[in-house]
């Protein structure tokens, strides 16, 4: 049975070409393969989960595979997550046929969805970093076609960002892991703790750790590499968004958790790094989500924010030392909740999008007014993510919050530095409020308010039923999972969390947490009160504007300079590329200019010495060749300058106003921004040389 662990990831990958071929003939058969593969994987993972509950772990070593050998293990946490992923793929698989009913490229979508599925399972089942990296890379690249699916300019641009970050992350992780292997001698998860203990210089692990963190963090969406999420989700098909957000980001978290629990065990510095990154990610995502007027963008930013919460959980595991059970439970449960919350929400939005082809809040306003089923499903997701008591998100947020409070409580007695933990605790509460505020904004816009245009409202009201029974079933199932988790935390969530503790190297807590104790309810209440306040004051006050027709419209007040990608990453990359080209050209031409011509001149000289007329002709020809410039320096610089002119970025948030997706609707371009001032490399070189000379002169003067 142990070979199940390799079949789980491989079977979807092997089936993917079959699905491709079948979908070419009949769409229905193609989707049947996807649903069948996910269903079978779900059954297998239930079996693994049962084994984990009974204390029977299974593991598998394949020594000759892929060079260093592959190894797999299914313990509690991994069995749990394999189950979650299988369920996610199954439910989205049920929704996709209706979502794509007028779509295109079904075969391609199925091919890559299955490959991504197998690779994602592979990461979660892997028992060493090498195996994890192999599947991670495959997953990273195979999910590219999801983002690029719509094939329009916006999708291609988002997909390019996604690909760039995926490859950069993959390479960074590769370097980090090679360094880690050089220091520790092993990459097997089970051997890492001992190897770490045996290592004298623990500080030398930090650099490899950071490289690996960049790699996995990029996939998780941790600041500052979160930029792909808000771009990719609005353009990806909704089922793919659900999987990207609920499934793939967790793979990034998986890597970080392994690092935290196996390499940086109870390492305070590591904890602090994660804490800072997590806090920034959490707040940033929530603020961006609040400002956004595009429903999928809000959900994407919300994902960033929730990943921040989870990262804080990982940080607290490192900071709390041996007392980290609450943090570990909170992390796992928040991962679990977030997976299902985003699954539910993105699928609900998908049901909306497949009828309206619009994402802008003003355009879809009022769509859900007479659709109680959709409203209830969305409400369950929204209430869970907002941390409202009796819904699942409340439990995990409470646990994470408890872990922060625990640290603040115990730190003075144990001599731990408080550092920024109290600040993070405050931010945690506030961000919880912001979460509530942006979910309230979405819910009210879609399900409560009326559309400004009565005709549109009438059309929206006439769309019934909103979905076919199969899609409805997948939505209902996803929402039910959330509902049950939230209603029976003691029976469902706590056991699942405890099942995962061994993987995280945490002991079960000494006493169970009373989730509904007054102090915890009070925390949630404060958060929700903040959220309500923010909604009433900020969203209704600042982020809405009365239009000429008297309708209150949502407006995007996010200034364009906030965009990290268009403002920093893309210009920086194009600048580096042009400088690199210039340098490379000069290095290349150094030879062309000196050696090649010198030799030719020498030849022609000799030819002239020895030959009569023939020699002269040869000489002339050779001289012409020697003078025939491969490329003169002026041309080189001109070309480089041309390269520096980055493609003008579309104004990213202006286009939200006209956010229209789907091949049926025209793509309305947003207003173009004035093109960036181009930099002049020659001038820059001169300035740099000048400054360098000045500094050198100053140095000489001072040293006398």
């Amino acid at each position, binding site marked *: 049975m142990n070979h199940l662990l390799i079949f789980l990831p491989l079977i979807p990958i092997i089936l993917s070409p079959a699905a491709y071929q079948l979908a070419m003939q009949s769409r229905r058969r193609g989707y049947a393969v996807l649903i069948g593969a996910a269903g079978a994987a779900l059954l297998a993972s239930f079996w693994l989960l049962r084994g984990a509950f009974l204390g029977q772990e299974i593991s598998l070593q394949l020594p000759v595979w892929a060079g*260093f050998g592959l190894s797999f293990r299914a313990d509690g946490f991994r069995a749990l997550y394999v189950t979650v992923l299988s369920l996610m793929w199954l439910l989205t698989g049920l929704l996709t046929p209706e979502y794509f009913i007028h779509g295109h490229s079904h075969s391609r979508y199925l091919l890559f969805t299955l490959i991504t599925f197998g690779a994602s399972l592979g990461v979660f089942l892997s028992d060493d970093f090498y195996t994890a990296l192999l599947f991670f890379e495959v997953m990273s690249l195979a999910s590219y076609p999801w983002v690029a699916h719509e094939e329009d300019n916006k999708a291609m641009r988002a997909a390019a960002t996604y690909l760039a970050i995926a490859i950069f992350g993959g390479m960074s992780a*590769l370097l980090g892991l090679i360094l880690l292997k050089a220091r520790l001698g092993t990459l097997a998860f089970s051997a890492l703790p001992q190897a770490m203990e045996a290592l004298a210089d623990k500080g030398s692990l930090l650099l490899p750790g950071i490289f690996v963190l960049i790699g996995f963090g990029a996939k998780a969406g941790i600041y500052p590499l979160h930029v792909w999420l808000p771009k990719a989700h609005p353009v990806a098909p909704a089922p793919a968004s659900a999987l990207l957000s609920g499934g793939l980001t967790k793979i990034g978290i998986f890597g970080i958790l392994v690092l935290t629990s196996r390499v940086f065990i109870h390492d305070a510095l590591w904890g602090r790094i994660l804490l800072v990154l997590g806090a920034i990610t959490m707040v940033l995502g929530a603020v961006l989500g609040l400002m956004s007027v595009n429903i999928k963008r809000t959900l994407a930013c919300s994902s960033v924010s929730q990943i921040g919460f989870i990262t804080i959980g990982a940080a607290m595991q490192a900071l709390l030392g041996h007392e980290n059970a609450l943090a570990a439970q909170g992390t796992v449960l928040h991962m679990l909740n977030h997976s299902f919350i985003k699954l539910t929400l993105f699928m609900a939005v998908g049901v909306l999008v497949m009828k309206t082809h619009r994402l802008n809040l003003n355009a879809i306003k009022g769509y859900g007014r007479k659709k109680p089923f959709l409203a209830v499903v969305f409400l369950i997701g929204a209430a869970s993510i907002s941390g409202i008591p009796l819904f699942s998100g409340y439990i995990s947020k409470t646990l994470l919050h408890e872990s922060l409070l625990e640290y603040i409580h115990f730190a003075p007695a144990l001599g731990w530095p408080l550092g920024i933990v109290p600040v993070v605790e405050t931010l945690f509460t506030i961000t919880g409020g912001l979460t509530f505020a942006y979910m309230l904004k979405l819910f009210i816009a879609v399900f409560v308010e009326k559309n400004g245009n009565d005709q549109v409202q009438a059309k929206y009201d006439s769309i019934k039923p909103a979905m076919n029974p199969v899609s409805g079933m997948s939505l209902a199932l996803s929402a039910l999972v959330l509902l049950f988790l939230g209603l029976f935390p003691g029976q469902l969530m706590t056991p699942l969390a405890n099942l995962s503790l061994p993987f995280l190297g945490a002991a079960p807590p000494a006493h169970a947490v009373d989730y509904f104790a007054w102090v915890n309810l009070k925390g949630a209440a404060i958060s929700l009160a903040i959220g309500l306040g923010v909604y009433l004051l900020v969203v209704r006050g600042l982020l809405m504007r009365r239009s000429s027709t008297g309708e209150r419209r949502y407006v995007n007040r996010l200034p364009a300079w906030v965009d990290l990608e268009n403002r920093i990453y893309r210009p920086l990359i194009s600048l580096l590329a042009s400088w690199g080209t210039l340098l490379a050209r000069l290095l290349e031409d150094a030879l062309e200019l000196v*050696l*090649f011509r010198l030799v030719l001149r020498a030849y022609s000289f000799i030819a002239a010495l020895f030959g009569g007329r023939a020699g002269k002709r040869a000489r002339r020809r050779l001289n012409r060749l020697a003078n025939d410039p491969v490329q003169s320096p002026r041309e080189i610089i001109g070309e480089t300058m041309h390269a520096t002119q980055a493609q003008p970025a579309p104004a990213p948030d202006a286009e939200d106003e006209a956010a229209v997706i789907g091949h049926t609707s025209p793509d309305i371009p947003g207003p173009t921004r004035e093109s960036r001032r181009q930099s002049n490399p020659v001038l820059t070189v001169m300035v740099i040389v000048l400054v360098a000379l000045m500094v050198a002169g100053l140095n000489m003067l001072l040293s006398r």
Partner: protein
Amino acid sequence: MPNLLFIALILLPVLSSCLIAIEGGVSGTMKSRRALVATTLALQCLLSVLVFLEGDQSQLLFHLSPHLPVALRSDALARYSVVIISFLWTFTGAYSFKYMEHVHNEKRFYTFYMLILGALMAMCLADTLITLFIFFEAVTFLSMALFSIEKSKETTRASLRFLVYAIISAVLCFVGLLLTAPNTATPYFVPGGSLLPPGQFTISVSAMLGAVFVGCVGFASMADMFPLHGWLPAAHPVASAPASAILSSVIAKMGILGIIRYLYYVVGPEFIRHSWVQTLLLAFALITVFIGSMLALRQNVLKKRLAYSSMSQLSYILCGVFLLNQTALDGALLHMFFHALTKSALYMCAGAIIFYTGRTELDQLHALGTRMPVTMTLFTIASLGLVGIPPMGGFISKWYLMEGAITGTGLGVFTWLVPAVLLVSALLTAAYLLPISISAFYDDPKKSAGMDRLCPTRLSARMETSMLILVAALIGFGLFPGALINFFQAIADTLV
């Protein structure tokens, strides 16, 4: 009893080349010529496998002078090279039959195609430095004839440039050889080197270091290493696709084979370890990696982009060779193998594109994925292999190369510089190769309107099969590289 297998291995392609060259007779028509080529290549594969199975044999041919024996030997490295080259030659040959239809001078091409194979076999089997040198030069100058088949101004220019480099390279190699040979214990190759103790040199130690440096730079010129680089990007655009494929995947690698023979079998890695020679050579290799991948980014001509890419990838391998440790050497040998597969496949795909569309510039190629799905899929997989994405083979070799740099001792700044440059180069590789695939599959098919006429939906089966086998091997060996790694490790064990 002379070893007939060796002789047959070398003489068979030479003989076939002569037959092709002679007007009329068995190779009078195109059909009979192809039959001859195909038969020879099949026999060649068989012979190379026999040589591989026979194990380590040696054969003295003759003496140039009492101290300069010309001898052959099939040690592990030679056996491996012979087999790989024979098979690559066969796949490329199968591919070329269709491709050469629209190239003139087919006869000339096949004459040199087979002749070079003979020279390559001899060079791989060489057991003394002088044998290596002779056949290295033969390969170098013959390959010029191979890529300058078509008569045009560009061809002349590329050939002339190549000639300049080849002559400089020959002079440098000869100087290195001349100064090294008298100071070795034996003229034959000895794993780990056979240099005399420094006290017994006929020249000073520093002069000896200089000689080694010069020799290495000479050989490396063939692999397009800075500062004697620049012939690959000139030669590739004018070469036909099959010529390009073997130029990048085999002939340029002969420079690396030469360096491995020279450094590890004659001089010995210990002699130059931690010396300025190693430092400078590593620096040159890294500069080339950088130049190659940076310039590839800006090339609009598909084959030129691939040529610059080859330049940087070849220097990856040289990096591994110059790091002088076992892991890195493993990586270098692995990367040699995988790069040969990858680049052959990429050039064949590029050739198929050029053959069917007649366009060479990337900004004129749109939505090829709908017209030539198989070719572009294979191109994409090979590209990913070149970037170093698992499970394709390039990943594992890159891992070894980087691990070799990181775990190597006393490398100073190169401990982190090598991985950093390799990493940046991998990113650049992705940046210059993946957009081709993306535009092939995601461009609006309307853009390819003009191409409908040009390319049929099905390519020649022979072309596709050749590419398919190479890509399948890339994935297969990437998933199960165990045997390969063991084989290379055994070689590296004896050398370092």
